[in-house]
């Protein structure tokens, strides 16, 4: 029977222009890594947008797996700019194998 441990999975939707701000915060929180996945389009209070990479207003998901405490540190770190920078942050518990890596 393999062993799994519980970690937080955090996903942050951000303008791609601001992705480096987010990944720097992840590095600051001492988390081991992150992964960026593409986003096609979306709708929020600002109305609908589409793939707008040409205009630099496209978005990406930054996701990271971290232990509870570091995840909280990251959320605290990002909280002040969530609204001003239009970030969307969700997190939940996941099971991971090889938990010592995160």
């Amino acid at each position, binding site marked *: 029977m393999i062993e799994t441990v519980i970690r937080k999975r955090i996903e942050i939707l951000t303008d791609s222009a601001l992705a480096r701000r987010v990944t720097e915060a992840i590095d600051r929180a001492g988390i081991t890594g992150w992964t960026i996945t593409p986003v096609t389009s979306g709708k929020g209070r*600002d109305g609908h947008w*589409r*793939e707008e*990479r*040409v*205009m*630099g*207003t496209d978005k990406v998901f930054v996701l990271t797996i971290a232990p509870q405490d570091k995840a909280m540190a990251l959320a605290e770190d990002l909280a002040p700019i969530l609204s001003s920078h*239009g970030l969307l942050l969700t997190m939940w518990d996941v099971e991971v194998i090889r938990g010592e890596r995160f």
Partner: protein
Amino acid sequence: MDASVLQTFTSPVVLFFVLGLLAAFARSDLAIPEAIAKGMSLYLMAAIGLKGGVAVAKSGIDARVLGALLIGILASFALPLIANLLLRTFGRLDRINAGAVAAHYGSVSVVTYVTAVEILTGSQMAPQGFMVAVLAAMETPAILTGLLLARGLGKSSDGRSKGELLHEVFLNASVVLLLGAFAIGMIAGPDGFAEVTPFFEAGFKGVLCLFLLDMGLIAARRIMDARSVTWRLAVIAIALPLINGTLGTLAAHAIGLDVGSVAAFGVLCASASYIAVPAAMRLALPEADPGIYLTMSLSVTFPFNILINIGLITAFASMLAGGAAVP
């Protein structure tokens, strides 16, 4: 004047833009994959950079070139002030958003410039090659003025230094590619360029057609979803290209450029950035609303320039040059 305007409307380049607008307004699902659009935009910038560099390799750099660069940089620094005034008073925008929008109108739109060059060349008024360097020089100064207007001399909201920001702004993709290709054109010269002519010159106009198709689709779709742009802002988005275009044309005429370059400089001043500046604003002024600045520059000013203002500015430049309107 009518002739220039007509000239505009039988050019395939402009017709594809109109097709894009119509398709989007009719809610067709026509769309260009974003990777293709990005690729075409890189191609267009490399191609005009190269062509400009080769032209300067042939003609050399003289006082006229330096003069044009100088008024370009000055215009880019100064034009946001006019925009900001209009936006804060008539436009009723707050300080942050007014500064962000103003930066767009001081900077330039590469595709507006390229479309103008095609139309001018079609009327035997091709601008000089060094105007590409002017284009590149005008991209970024406006960003500084816009930031100062929005935020004064303080730190940015997320505590990053201005230095870091400027690094990101000045090394943005389009400036690097334009100036890099310009330098390559100067080093390789006409002979080196001859080898790549079939790709960078022969294909240029066709790629521009498809790129403008995409711009038409995006501009129209954005305006249909727009919420934040009031009629006051729409009026400003038409007034600014008229004002800036007139000022630019007069300035370029005053320093004695040829008629094609005068018109091209007028178009540069009239145009509003929708690539480099929006990206910079997301970094530097994330609180500003892209719904305002993108819709104004991309969905109002850009089509107005392509469809009408390039023709007006060309006619004005011809008039200044003492000629009648173009044949």
